[in-house]
Protein backbone atom coordinates (compact mmCIF):
# COMPACT_ATOMS: atom_id res chain seq x y z
CA UNK A 1 0.00 0.00 0.00
CA UNK A 2 2.78 2.42 0.91
CA UNK A 3 4.73 1.75 -2.26
CA UNK A 4 1.59 2.42 -4.25
CA UNK A 5 0.91 5.69 -2.49
CA UNK A 6 4.29 7.03 -3.56
CA UNK A 7 3.37 6.66 -7.23
CA UNK A 8 1.81 9.54 -9.08
CA UNK A 9 -1.91 9.57 -9.74
CA UNK A 10 -1.48 8.58 -13.40
CA UNK A 11 0.76 5.58 -12.63
CA UNK A 12 -1.45 4.45 -9.79
CA UNK A 13 -4.49 4.60 -12.04
CA UNK A 14 -2.72 2.62 -14.77
CA UNK A 15 -1.65 -0.10 -12.35
CA UNK A 16 -4.99 -0.41 -10.63
CA UNK A 17 -7.11 -0.52 -13.81
CA UNK A 18 -5.31 -1.71 -16.95
CA UNK A 19 -2.81 -3.50 -14.75
CA UNK A 20 -5.57 -5.66 -13.28
CA UNK A 21 -6.92 -6.90 -16.61
CA UNK A 22 -5.80 -10.10 -18.32
CA UNK A 23 -6.01 -11.79 -21.70
CA UNK A 24 -8.21 -14.88 -21.65
CA UNK A 25 -6.40 -18.06 -22.69
CA UNK A 26 -9.04 -20.79 -22.96
CA UNK A 27 -12.14 -18.81 -23.96
CA UNK A 28 -12.55 -16.43 -26.90
CA UNK A 29 -13.29 -12.81 -25.91
CA UNK A 30 -16.57 -12.97 -27.84
CA UNK A 31 -17.79 -15.70 -25.46
CA UNK A 32 -16.85 -13.63 -22.43
CA UNK A 33 -18.43 -10.41 -23.74
CA UNK A 34 -21.38 -11.71 -25.78
CA UNK A 35 -23.21 -8.35 -26.06
CA UNK A 36 -20.28 -6.27 -27.26
CA UNK A 37 -20.94 -6.38 -31.00
CA UNK A 38 -24.62 -6.61 -31.90
CA UNK A 39 -25.23 -2.89 -31.62
CA UNK A 40 -22.72 -2.22 -34.40
CA UNK A 41 -20.28 -0.18 -32.30
CA UNK A 42 -16.68 -0.61 -33.44
CA UNK A 43 -13.77 -0.30 -31.01
CA UNK A 44 -10.19 -0.46 -32.28
CA UNK A 45 -8.24 -0.02 -29.06
CA UNK A 46 -9.71 -0.23 -25.58
CA UNK A 47 -6.44 0.88 -24.00
CA UNK A 48 -7.09 4.42 -25.35
CA UNK A 49 -9.73 4.79 -22.63
CA UNK A 50 -8.82 7.02 -19.70
CA UNK A 51 -10.88 7.99 -16.70
CA UNK A 52 -10.00 11.65 -16.09
CA UNK A 53 -10.85 11.32 -12.39
CA UNK A 54 -8.31 8.51 -12.25
CA UNK A 55 -10.15 7.14 -9.27
CA UNK A 56 -8.94 3.75 -8.12
CA UNK A 57 -10.97 1.33 -6.01
CA UNK A 58 -8.98 1.97 -2.82
CA UNK A 59 -9.58 5.74 -2.99
CA UNK A 60 -13.15 5.12 -4.00
CA UNK A 61 -13.90 3.21 -0.79
CA UNK A 62 -12.12 5.84 1.29
CA UNK A 63 -14.12 8.79 -0.05
CA UNK A 64 -17.44 6.96 -0.15
CA UNK A 65 -17.04 5.92 3.49
CA UNK A 66 -16.40 9.54 4.42
CA UNK A 67 -19.53 10.65 2.56
CA UNK A 68 -21.63 8.06 4.36
CA UNK A 69 -20.30 9.07 7.78
CA UNK A 70 -21.24 12.68 7.14
CA UNK A 71 -24.66 11.77 5.82
CA UNK A 72 -25.65 9.50 8.68
CA UNK A 73 -24.56 12.02 11.29
CA UNK A 74 -27.01 14.52 9.81
CA UNK A 75 -29.84 11.98 9.44
CA UNK A 76 -29.45 10.95 13.03
CA UNK A 77 -29.73 14.47 14.37
CA UNK A 78 -32.60 15.28 11.98
CA UNK A 79 -34.60 12.40 13.45
CA UNK A 80 -33.51 13.11 17.02
CA UNK A 81 -34.58 16.74 16.76
CA UNK A 82 -37.88 16.12 14.93
CA UNK A 83 -36.64 17.90 11.82
CA UNK A 84 -39.96 17.24 10.05
CA UNK A 85 -41.56 20.05 12.08
CA UNK A 86 -39.11 22.58 10.64
CA UNK A 87 -40.32 22.20 7.04
CA UNK A 88 -41.55 25.34 5.30
CA UNK A 89 -45.04 23.88 4.98
CA UNK A 90 -46.80 20.47 4.93
CA UNK A 91 -47.30 20.74 1.17
CA UNK A 92 -43.57 20.38 0.69
CA UNK A 93 -43.69 16.72 1.79
CA UNK A 94 -45.49 15.83 -1.44
CA UNK A 95 -42.34 16.60 -3.40
CA UNK A 96 -40.53 14.06 -1.21
CA UNK A 97 -43.30 11.48 -1.91
CA UNK A 98 -42.91 11.99 -5.64
CA UNK A 99 -39.16 11.61 -5.23
CA UNK A 100 -39.38 8.35 -3.26
CA UNK A 101 -41.96 6.73 -5.53
CA UNK A 102 -40.62 8.06 -8.84
CA UNK A 103 -36.87 8.58 -8.53
CA UNK A 104 -35.52 6.27 -5.82
CA UNK A 105 -36.56 3.05 -7.60
CA UNK A 106 -34.93 4.51 -10.71
CA UNK A 107 -31.66 4.80 -8.77
CA UNK A 108 -31.97 1.10 -8.09
CA UNK A 109 -32.58 0.46 -11.79
CA UNK A 110 -29.49 2.53 -12.60
CA UNK A 111 -27.54 0.34 -10.16
CA UNK A 112 -28.63 -2.81 -11.98
CA UNK A 113 -27.97 -1.30 -15.39
CA UNK A 114 -24.42 -0.30 -14.49
CA UNK A 115 -23.76 -3.68 -12.90
CA UNK A 116 -24.67 -5.23 -16.26
CA UNK A 117 -22.53 -2.79 -18.23
CA UNK A 118 -19.70 -3.20 -15.70
CA UNK A 119 -19.73 -6.89 -16.55
CA UNK A 120 -20.23 -6.73 -20.30
CA UNK A 121 -18.09 -3.91 -21.68
CA UNK A 122 -14.81 -5.39 -22.96
CA UNK A 123 -12.61 -2.44 -21.88
CA UNK A 124 -11.26 -2.59 -18.35
CA UNK A 125 -11.29 1.20 -17.73
CA UNK A 126 -15.00 1.73 -18.41
CA UNK A 127 -15.79 -1.58 -16.73
CA UNK A 128 -14.27 -0.40 -13.45
CA UNK A 129 -15.90 3.02 -13.73
CA UNK A 130 -19.26 1.34 -14.39
CA UNK A 131 -18.80 -0.90 -11.36
CA UNK A 132 -18.16 2.14 -9.18
CA UNK A 133 -21.23 3.83 -10.60
CA UNK A 134 -23.27 0.70 -9.96
CA UNK A 135 -22.26 0.83 -6.29
CA UNK A 136 -22.99 4.57 -6.16
CA UNK A 137 -26.48 4.10 -7.53
CA UNK A 138 -27.21 1.37 -5.00
CA UNK A 139 -25.98 3.74 -2.29
CA UNK A 140 -28.32 6.44 -3.64
CA UNK A 141 -31.32 4.12 -3.50
CA UNK A 142 -30.47 2.97 0.03
CA UNK A 143 -29.74 6.39 1.50
CA UNK A 144 -32.89 7.86 -0.04
CA UNK A 145 -35.07 5.09 1.37
CA UNK A 146 -33.35 5.42 4.72
CA UNK A 147 -33.73 9.20 4.83
CA UNK A 148 -37.33 9.32 3.70
CA UNK A 149 -38.37 6.48 6.02
CA UNK A 150 -38.37 9.15 8.71
CA UNK A 151 -41.24 10.95 6.94
CA UNK A 152 -43.09 7.67 6.61
CA UNK A 153 -43.50 7.68 10.39
CA UNK A 154 -45.70 10.79 10.14
CA UNK A 155 -47.00 11.34 6.62
CA UNK A 156 -49.12 9.32 4.16
CA UNK A 157 -48.04 8.15 0.72
CA UNK A 158 -44.57 6.80 1.49
CA UNK A 159 -45.46 3.31 2.68
CA UNK A 160 -45.56 1.33 -0.60
CA UNK A 161 -43.14 3.26 -2.80
CA UNK A 162 -41.61 0.24 -4.50
CA UNK A 163 -44.90 -1.57 -5.12
CA UNK A 164 -46.40 1.66 -6.43
CA UNK A 165 -43.46 2.30 -8.73
CA UNK A 166 -44.27 -0.94 -10.54
CA UNK A 167 -47.99 -0.26 -10.90
CA UNK A 168 -49.20 3.34 -10.59
CA UNK A 169 -50.02 5.10 -13.87
CA UNK A 170 -47.69 8.15 -13.69
CA UNK A 171 -44.85 6.16 -12.13
CA UNK A 172 -44.72 4.07 -15.27
CA UNK A 173 -43.16 7.16 -16.87
CA UNK A 174 -39.79 6.93 -15.02
CA UNK A 175 -40.09 3.14 -14.69
CA UNK A 176 -40.49 2.57 -18.42
CA UNK A 177 -37.62 4.97 -19.10
CA UNK A 178 -35.21 2.77 -17.15
CA UNK A 179 -36.79 -0.48 -18.37
CA UNK A 180 -36.18 0.81 -21.87
CA UNK A 181 -32.54 1.68 -21.15
CA UNK A 182 -31.79 -1.57 -19.35
CA UNK A 183 -33.21 -3.71 -22.14
CA UNK A 184 -30.96 -1.98 -24.67
CA UNK A 185 -27.41 -3.14 -25.44
CA UNK A 186 -24.54 -2.11 -23.15
CA UNK A 187 -23.33 0.76 -25.37
CA UNK A 188 -26.79 2.22 -25.76
CA UNK A 189 -27.30 1.99 -22.00
CA UNK A 190 -24.05 3.86 -21.51
CA UNK A 191 -25.17 6.67 -23.85
CA UNK A 192 -28.75 6.67 -22.52
CA UNK A 193 -27.98 6.89 -18.82
CA UNK A 194 -24.31 7.89 -18.71
CA UNK A 195 -24.44 10.61 -21.31
CA UNK A 196 -27.99 11.78 -22.08
CA UNK A 197 -29.34 11.43 -18.56
CA UNK A 198 -26.32 12.02 -16.31
CA UNK A 199 -24.48 14.61 -18.36
CA UNK A 200 -27.17 16.50 -20.19
CA UNK A 201 -30.14 16.26 -17.82
CA UNK A 202 -29.17 15.22 -14.28
CA UNK A 203 -28.47 18.76 -13.12
CA UNK A 204 -32.06 19.63 -13.93
CA UNK A 205 -33.16 16.89 -11.59
CA UNK A 206 -30.82 17.17 -8.65
CA UNK A 207 -29.54 20.70 -8.39
CA UNK A 208 -32.90 22.51 -8.32
CA UNK A 209 -34.46 19.69 -6.31
CA UNK A 210 -31.82 19.72 -3.60
CA UNK A 211 -31.42 23.45 -3.55
CA UNK A 212 -35.22 23.55 -3.23
CA UNK A 213 -35.11 21.09 -0.33
CA UNK A 214 -32.49 23.29 1.37
CA UNK A 215 -34.71 26.33 0.93
CA UNK A 216 -37.74 24.51 2.34
CA UNK A 217 -36.10 23.28 5.52
CA UNK A 218 -35.68 19.66 4.46
CA UNK A 219 -32.24 19.13 5.91
CA UNK A 220 -32.42 15.35 5.52
CA UNK A 221 -33.17 15.43 1.80
CA UNK A 222 -30.59 18.12 1.11
CA UNK A 223 -27.99 15.99 2.77
CA UNK A 224 -28.67 12.77 0.87
CA UNK A 225 -29.14 14.86 -2.24
CA UNK A 226 -25.76 16.50 -2.11
CA UNK A 227 -24.14 13.29 -0.95
CA UNK A 228 -25.55 11.53 -4.03
CA UNK A 229 -24.79 14.51 -6.22
CA UNK A 230 -21.10 14.35 -5.30
CA UNK A 231 -21.09 11.01 -7.15
CA UNK A 232 -22.91 12.54 -10.11
CA UNK A 233 -19.89 14.57 -11.20
CA UNK A 234 -18.08 11.29 -11.65
CA UNK A 235 -21.07 9.87 -13.51
CA UNK A 236 -21.24 12.90 -15.77
CA UNK A 237 -17.55 12.56 -16.53
CA UNK A 238 -18.00 8.90 -17.37
CA UNK A 239 -20.84 9.87 -19.70
CA UNK A 240 -18.84 12.46 -21.62
CA UNK A 241 -15.79 10.18 -21.81
CA UNK A 242 -17.90 7.36 -23.24
CA UNK A 243 -19.29 9.48 -26.00
CA UNK A 244 -15.89 10.95 -26.93
CA UNK A 245 -14.31 7.51 -26.87
CA UNK A 246 -16.94 5.93 -29.14
CA UNK A 247 -16.71 8.82 -31.60
CA UNK A 248 -12.91 8.75 -31.65
CA UNK A 249 -12.70 5.00 -32.14
CA UNK A 250 -14.49 4.64 -35.48
CA UNK A 251 -16.39 6.94 -37.87
CA UNK A 252 -19.11 4.27 -38.28
CA UNK A 253 -20.09 4.89 -34.66
CA UNK A 254 -21.30 8.45 -35.31
CA UNK A 255 -24.75 7.73 -36.82
CA UNK A 256 -25.48 5.09 -34.16
CA UNK A 257 -24.47 7.40 -31.33
CA UNK A 258 -26.38 10.33 -32.83
CA UNK A 259 -29.56 8.27 -32.97
CA UNK A 260 -29.15 7.32 -29.30
CA UNK A 261 -28.48 10.92 -28.30
CA UNK A 262 -31.63 12.07 -30.09
CA UNK A 263 -33.73 9.30 -28.57
CA UNK A 264 -32.50 9.56 -25.00
CA UNK A 265 -32.56 13.32 -24.89
CA UNK A 266 -36.25 13.23 -25.77
CA UNK A 267 -37.03 10.34 -23.41
CA UNK A 268 -35.24 12.18 -20.58
CA UNK A 269 -36.95 15.48 -21.35
CA UNK A 270 -40.34 13.79 -21.02
CA UNK A 271 -39.44 12.19 -17.65
CA UNK A 272 -38.20 15.53 -16.32
CA UNK A 273 -41.63 17.04 -16.84
CA UNK A 274 -42.33 15.67 -13.34
CA UNK A 275 -39.45 17.78 -12.01
CA UNK A 276 -40.69 20.85 -13.88
CA UNK A 277 -44.02 20.59 -12.09
CA UNK A 278 -42.31 19.95 -8.76
CA UNK A 279 -40.25 23.13 -9.09
CA UNK A 280 -43.01 25.44 -10.28
CA UNK A 281 -45.95 24.07 -8.28
CA UNK A 282 -44.87 21.81 -5.43
CA UNK A 283 -42.13 23.72 -3.61
CA UNK A 284 -43.78 26.18 -1.18
CA UNK A 285 -40.64 28.35 -1.30
CA UNK A 286 -39.39 28.45 -4.84
CA UNK A 287 -35.77 28.77 -5.94
CA UNK A 288 -36.03 29.18 -9.68
CA UNK A 289 -38.57 28.35 -12.35
CA UNK A 290 -38.29 25.35 -14.65
CA UNK A 291 -37.78 27.80 -17.51
CA UNK A 292 -34.78 29.38 -15.72
CA UNK A 293 -33.31 25.98 -14.83
CA UNK A 294 -33.70 24.88 -18.46
CA UNK A 295 -31.91 28.02 -19.66
CA UNK A 296 -28.96 27.49 -17.31
CA UNK A 297 -28.59 23.74 -17.50
CA UNK A 298 -29.72 22.92 -21.00
CA UNK A 299 -29.43 25.99 -23.20
CA UNK A 300 -26.20 27.29 -21.69
CA UNK A 301 -24.41 24.18 -20.36
CA UNK A 302 -25.75 21.91 -23.12
CA UNK A 303 -24.83 24.55 -25.72
CA UNK A 304 -21.19 24.54 -24.62
CA UNK A 305 -21.17 20.74 -24.50
CA UNK A 306 -22.54 20.23 -28.00
CA UNK A 307 -20.28 22.94 -29.40
CA UNK A 308 -17.40 20.89 -27.97
CA UNK A 309 -18.67 17.62 -29.45
CA UNK A 310 -19.24 19.22 -32.87
CA UNK A 311 -15.61 18.39 -33.72
CA UNK A 312 -16.68 14.73 -33.97
CA UNK A 313 -19.60 15.58 -36.25
CA UNK A 314 -22.17 15.15 -33.48
CA UNK A 315 -25.02 17.69 -33.57
CA UNK A 316 -27.29 18.79 -30.71
CA UNK A 317 -30.21 16.41 -30.08
CA UNK A 318 -33.09 16.49 -32.53
CA UNK A 319 -36.10 18.41 -31.15
CA UNK A 320 -33.96 20.31 -28.62
CA UNK A 321 -35.68 23.44 -29.98
CA UNK A 322 -39.10 21.89 -29.35
CA UNK A 323 -38.10 20.99 -25.77
CA UNK A 324 -36.87 24.55 -25.19
CA UNK A 325 -40.13 26.01 -26.50
CA UNK A 326 -42.08 23.55 -24.31
CA UNK A 327 -40.36 24.90 -21.20
CA UNK A 328 -42.98 27.70 -21.29
CA UNK A 329 -45.82 25.19 -20.90
CA UNK A 330 -44.57 21.94 -19.44
CA UNK A 331 -45.05 22.45 -15.71
CA UNK A 332 -48.48 24.09 -16.10
CA UNK A 333 -49.80 21.29 -18.30
CA UNK A 334 -48.43 18.57 -16.03
CA UNK A 335 -49.80 20.07 -12.82
CA UNK A 336 -53.19 20.42 -14.53
CA UNK A 337 -53.17 16.68 -15.23
CA UNK A 338 -52.43 15.82 -11.60
CA UNK A 339 -55.04 18.26 -10.33
CA UNK A 340 -57.70 16.57 -12.48
CA UNK A 341 -56.62 13.07 -11.45
CA UNK A 342 -55.90 13.77 -7.78
CA UNK A 343 -58.16 10.83 -6.84
CA UNK A 344 -55.65 8.43 -8.43
CA UNK A 345 -52.38 10.03 -7.25
CA UNK A 346 -50.32 8.94 -4.23
CA UNK A 347 -49.62 12.55 -3.24
CA UNK A 348 -51.78 15.59 -2.61
CA UNK A 349 -52.62 18.38 -5.03
CA UNK A 350 -53.82 21.98 -4.72
CA UNK A 351 -54.37 25.06 -6.83
CA UNK A 352 -51.66 27.71 -6.82
CA UNK A 353 -52.44 30.56 -4.42
CA UNK A 354 -52.91 34.09 -5.83
CA UNK A 355 -49.36 34.92 -4.68
CA UNK A 356 -47.99 31.84 -6.45
CA UNK A 357 -49.90 32.74 -9.59
CA UNK A 358 -48.25 36.16 -9.54
CA UNK A 359 -44.86 34.45 -9.30
CA UNK A 360 -45.79 32.23 -12.25
CA UNK A 361 -46.91 35.27 -14.29
CA UNK A 362 -43.58 36.92 -13.61
CA UNK A 363 -41.57 33.81 -14.52
CA UNK A 364 -43.73 32.92 -17.54
CA UNK A 365 -44.74 36.25 -19.09
CA UNK A 366 -45.32 34.60 -22.49
CA UNK A 367 -47.67 31.87 -21.39
CA UNK A 368 -49.07 31.89 -17.86
CA UNK A 369 -51.59 34.74 -17.84
CA UNK A 370 -52.83 33.93 -21.30
CA UNK A 371 -53.25 30.16 -21.06
CA UNK A 372 -53.05 28.87 -17.51
CA UNK A 373 -54.18 31.51 -15.03
CA UNK A 374 -57.75 31.50 -16.42
CA UNK A 375 -57.90 27.72 -16.05
CA UNK A 376 -56.71 27.76 -12.42
CA UNK A 377 -59.04 30.64 -11.57
CA UNK A 378 -61.97 28.79 -13.03
CA UNK A 379 -61.10 25.66 -11.06
CA UNK A 380 -60.78 27.77 -7.89
CA UNK A 381 -64.25 29.16 -8.50
CA UNK A 382 -65.63 25.65 -8.99
CA UNK A 383 -64.04 24.64 -5.68
CA UNK A 384 -65.69 27.59 -3.94
CA UNK A 385 -69.05 26.51 -5.39
CA UNK A 386 -68.51 22.99 -4.03
CA UNK A 387 -67.96 21.60 -7.55
CA UNK A 388 -64.27 20.68 -7.44
CA UNK A 389 -63.38 19.33 -10.90
CA UNK A 390 -62.36 15.66 -11.19
CA UNK A 391 -61.65 13.97 -14.48
CA UNK A 392 -63.14 10.49 -14.29
CA UNK A 393 -62.25 9.31 -17.79
CA UNK A 394 -59.05 7.30 -18.17
CA UNK A 395 -56.67 9.26 -20.41
CA UNK A 396 -55.12 8.07 -23.65
CA UNK A 397 -51.39 7.52 -23.10
CA UNK A 398 -48.42 8.07 -25.37
CA UNK A 399 -47.06 4.63 -26.28
CA UNK A 400 -43.45 5.74 -25.81
CA UNK A 401 -43.24 8.15 -22.84
CA UNK A 402 -46.49 6.78 -21.27
CA UNK A 403 -47.64 10.29 -20.30
CA UNK A 404 -51.34 11.19 -20.77
CA UNK A 405 -51.84 12.92 -24.10
CA UNK A 406 -52.19 16.41 -22.67
CA UNK A 407 -49.33 18.24 -24.37
CA UNK A 408 -50.02 20.83 -27.01
CA UNK A 409 -48.79 21.35 -30.56
CA UNK A 410 -45.44 23.10 -30.94
CA UNK A 411 -46.29 26.77 -31.43
CA UNK A 412 -50.00 26.32 -30.60
CA UNK A 413 -50.80 25.91 -26.90
CA UNK A 414 -54.54 25.65 -27.57
CA UNK A 415 -54.44 22.42 -29.61
CA UNK A 416 -53.56 19.00 -28.17
CA UNK A 417 -50.78 17.29 -30.09
CA UNK A 418 -51.66 13.85 -31.49
CA UNK A 419 -49.37 11.66 -33.60
CA UNK A 420 -49.77 8.03 -34.60
CA UNK A 421 -48.12 5.16 -36.49
CA UNK A 422 -49.38 1.86 -37.86
CA UNK A 423 -47.51 -1.32 -37.02
CA UNK A 424 -48.67 -4.83 -38.01
CA UNK A 425 -52.23 -3.68 -38.40
CA UNK A 426 -52.47 -1.78 -35.11
CA UNK A 427 -52.48 1.93 -34.51
CA UNK A 428 -50.19 3.43 -31.84
CA UNK A 429 -50.53 6.93 -30.41
CA UNK A 430 -47.88 9.49 -29.43
CA UNK A 431 -47.71 12.84 -27.66
CA UNK A 432 -45.08 14.34 -29.96
CA UNK A 433 -42.88 13.94 -33.01
CA UNK A 434 -40.05 13.01 -30.65
CA UNK A 435 -41.95 10.02 -29.24
CA UNK A 436 -43.25 9.00 -32.68
CA UNK A 437 -39.71 8.94 -34.11
CA UNK A 438 -38.58 6.68 -31.27
CA UNK A 439 -41.41 4.24 -31.92
CA UNK A 440 -40.81 4.25 -35.67
CA UNK A 441 -37.15 3.39 -35.03
CA UNK A 442 -37.98 0.28 -32.94
CA UNK A 443 -41.66 -0.65 -33.34
CA UNK A 444 -41.04 -4.24 -32.18
CA UNK A 445 -39.88 -2.94 -28.82
CA UNK A 446 -42.45 -0.23 -28.13
CA UNK A 447 -45.47 -2.14 -29.43
CA UNK A 448 -44.93 -4.28 -26.29
CA UNK A 449 -45.14 -1.32 -23.87
CA UNK A 450 -46.98 -2.00 -20.61
CA UNK A 451 -49.37 0.96 -20.68
CA UNK A 452 -51.23 1.47 -17.38
CA UNK A 453 -54.52 2.56 -18.94
CA UNK A 454 -54.57 -0.29 -21.46
CA UNK A 455 -53.80 -2.70 -18.66
CA UNK A 456 -56.73 -1.42 -16.59
CA UNK A 457 -59.05 -1.85 -19.58
CA UNK A 458 -57.70 -5.36 -20.16
CA UNK A 459 -58.61 -6.28 -16.59
CA UNK A 460 -55.03 -6.71 -15.36
CA UNK A 461 -55.08 -4.12 -12.56
CA UNK A 462 -57.33 -5.49 -9.85
CA UNK A 463 -60.70 -4.77 -11.43
CA UNK A 464 -62.78 -2.33 -13.42
CA UNK A 465 -63.64 0.21 -10.70
CA UNK A 466 -61.46 3.02 -9.39
CA UNK A 467 -61.65 1.45 -5.92
CA UNK A 468 -60.30 -1.88 -7.13
CA UNK A 469 -57.49 -0.29 -9.10
CA UNK A 470 -56.43 1.86 -6.12
CA UNK A 471 -56.45 -1.21 -3.90
CA UNK A 472 -54.22 -2.95 -6.46
CA UNK A 473 -51.88 0.06 -6.26
CA UNK A 474 -52.02 -0.30 -2.41
CA UNK A 475 -53.06 3.33 -2.29
CA UNK A 476 -55.04 4.32 0.80
CA UNK A 477 -58.04 6.32 -0.45
CA UNK A 478 -58.76 9.39 1.63
CA UNK A 479 -55.25 9.49 3.07
CA UNK A 480 -52.71 9.16 0.26
CA UNK A 481 -54.73 10.81 -2.52
CA UNK A 482 -56.94 13.91 -3.07
CA UNK A 483 -56.31 17.55 -2.17
CA UNK A 484 -53.86 18.71 0.48
CA UNK A 485 -56.63 20.74 2.15
CA UNK A 486 -58.66 18.32 4.25
CA UNK A 487 -55.99 15.58 4.18
CA UNK A 488 -54.85 13.78 7.36
CA UNK A 489 -51.34 15.13 6.59
CA UNK A 490 -52.59 18.70 6.73
CA UNK A 491 -54.63 18.09 9.90
CA UNK A 492 -51.57 16.67 11.64
CA UNK A 493 -49.40 19.56 10.48
CA UNK A 494 -51.95 22.12 11.67
CA UNK A 495 -51.95 20.47 15.06
CA UNK A 496 -48.14 20.59 15.24
CA UNK A 497 -48.24 24.28 14.43
CA UNK A 498 -50.89 24.95 17.07
CA UNK A 499 -48.76 23.13 19.65
CA UNK A 500 -45.76 25.18 18.63
CA UNK A 501 -47.70 28.43 18.96
CA UNK A 502 -48.95 27.38 22.36
CA UNK A 503 -45.40 26.66 23.54
CA UNK A 504 -44.22 29.95 22.08
CA UNK A 505 -47.10 31.48 24.05
Amino acid at each position, binding site marked *: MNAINKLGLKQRYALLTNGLDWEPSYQPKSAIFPYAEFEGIKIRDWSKWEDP*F*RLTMDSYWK*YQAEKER*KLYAVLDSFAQNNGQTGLSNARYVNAAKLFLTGITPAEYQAHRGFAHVGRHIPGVGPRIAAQMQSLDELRHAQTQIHTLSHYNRFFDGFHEFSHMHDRVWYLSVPKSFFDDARTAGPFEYFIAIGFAFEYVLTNLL*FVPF*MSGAAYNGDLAT*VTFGFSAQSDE*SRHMTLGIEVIKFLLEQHPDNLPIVQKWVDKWFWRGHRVLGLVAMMMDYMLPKKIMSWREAWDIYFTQAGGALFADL*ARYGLRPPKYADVATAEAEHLSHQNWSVFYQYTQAAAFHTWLPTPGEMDWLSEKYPNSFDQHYRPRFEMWAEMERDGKRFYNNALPQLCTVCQIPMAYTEPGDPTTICFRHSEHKGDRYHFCSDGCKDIFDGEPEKYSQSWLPVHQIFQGNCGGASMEEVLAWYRLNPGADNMDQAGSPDQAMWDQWMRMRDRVAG
Partner: protein
Amino acid sequence: MSRTVSITLQNTDDARPIIEAITEDNPGATVHSYPGIVKIDREGSLTVHRASVETRLGRDWDPQEIHLSLVSMAGNLDEDDDYFRLAWAH
Protein backbone atom coordinates in the same frame (compact mmCIF):
# COMPACT_ATOMS: atom_id res chain seq x y z
CA MET B 1 -21.52 29.62 -28.96
CA SER B 2 -21.11 29.35 -25.21
CA ARG B 3 -17.75 28.14 -23.92
CA THR B 4 -18.67 28.42 -20.26
CA VAL B 5 -17.16 25.83 -17.99
CA SER B 6 -18.71 25.48 -14.58
CA ILE B 7 -18.19 23.90 -11.20
CA THR B 8 -20.80 23.63 -8.43
CA LEU B 9 -19.68 23.00 -4.85
CA GLN B 10 -21.55 22.64 -1.59
CA ASN B 11 -21.63 25.75 0.51
CA THR B 12 -19.86 24.18 3.51
CA ASP B 13 -16.80 24.69 5.67
CA ASP B 14 -14.94 22.00 3.73
CA ALA B 15 -15.67 23.60 0.39
CA ARG B 16 -15.08 27.26 1.26
CA PRO B 17 -11.26 27.17 0.91
CA ILE B 18 -11.72 25.52 -2.50
CA ILE B 19 -14.23 28.16 -3.56
CA GLU B 20 -11.83 30.89 -2.41
CA ALA B 21 -8.89 29.34 -4.22
CA ILE B 22 -10.91 29.11 -7.44
CA THR B 23 -12.12 32.71 -7.35
CA GLU B 24 -8.61 34.03 -6.59
CA ASP B 25 -6.79 31.91 -9.16
CA ASN B 26 -9.25 32.24 -12.06
CA PRO B 27 -9.73 35.88 -13.04
CA GLY B 28 -13.11 36.61 -14.57
CA ALA B 29 -14.88 33.73 -12.80
CA THR B 30 -18.47 34.52 -11.79
CA VAL B 31 -19.90 33.17 -8.58
CA HIS B 32 -23.61 32.39 -8.21
CA SER B 33 -25.00 31.45 -4.79
CA TYR B 34 -28.08 29.25 -4.48
CA PRO B 35 -29.50 27.68 -1.30
CA GLY B 36 -26.84 25.21 -0.11
CA ILE B 37 -24.57 25.50 -3.15
CA VAL B 38 -22.20 27.81 -5.01
CA LYS B 39 -21.87 27.65 -8.80
CA ILE B 40 -18.77 29.15 -10.40
CA ASP B 41 -18.69 29.82 -14.16
CA ARG B 42 -15.84 30.94 -16.38
CA GLU B 43 -15.21 31.22 -20.11
CA GLY B 44 -13.01 28.47 -21.57
CA SER B 45 -11.37 26.90 -18.51
CA LEU B 46 -11.13 26.80 -14.74
CA THR B 47 -8.41 25.31 -12.52
CA VAL B 48 -8.24 24.30 -8.87
CA HIS B 49 -4.60 24.37 -7.71
CA ARG B 50 -3.55 22.05 -4.93
CA ALA B 51 -1.02 24.54 -3.52
CA SER B 52 -3.57 27.31 -3.40
CA VAL B 53 -6.09 25.22 -1.46
CA GLU B 54 -3.34 23.99 0.90
CA THR B 55 -2.30 27.56 1.75
CA ARG B 56 -5.85 28.34 2.78
CA LEU B 57 -6.40 25.09 4.67
CA GLY B 58 -3.02 25.02 6.39
CA ARG B 59 -2.66 21.29 5.72
CA ASP B 60 -1.98 18.82 2.91
CA TRP B 61 -4.84 18.58 0.44
CA ASP B 62 -5.32 15.91 -2.19
CA PRO B 63 -7.27 17.22 -5.23
CA GLN B 64 -9.33 14.03 -5.03
CA GLU B 65 -10.78 15.34 -1.76
CA ILE B 66 -12.85 17.60 -4.01
CA HIS B 67 -15.13 14.55 -4.42
CA LEU B 68 -16.48 15.27 -0.94
CA SER B 69 -17.75 18.74 -1.89
CA LEU B 70 -18.50 18.53 -5.58
CA VAL B 71 -22.10 18.88 -6.73
CA SER B 72 -21.80 19.27 -10.47
CA MET B 73 -19.59 20.47 -13.29
CA ALA B 74 -19.46 21.25 -16.99
CA GLY B 75 -16.37 20.86 -19.18
CA ASN B 76 -13.78 18.23 -20.01
CA LEU B 77 -11.93 17.22 -16.89
CA ASP B 78 -8.20 16.81 -16.38
CA GLU B 79 -7.03 15.80 -12.95
CA ASP B 80 -3.51 15.18 -11.66
CA ASP B 81 -1.57 15.25 -8.40
CA ASP B 82 -1.40 19.06 -8.33
CA TYR B 83 -4.50 20.33 -10.03
CA PHE B 84 -8.11 19.72 -11.07
CA ARG B 85 -8.98 21.46 -14.37
CA LEU B 86 -12.12 21.89 -16.46
CA ALA B 87 -11.89 23.12 -20.05
CA TRP B 88 -13.66 23.05 -23.39
CA ALA B 89 -11.61 22.01 -26.40
CA HIS B 90 -13.46 24.30 -28.82
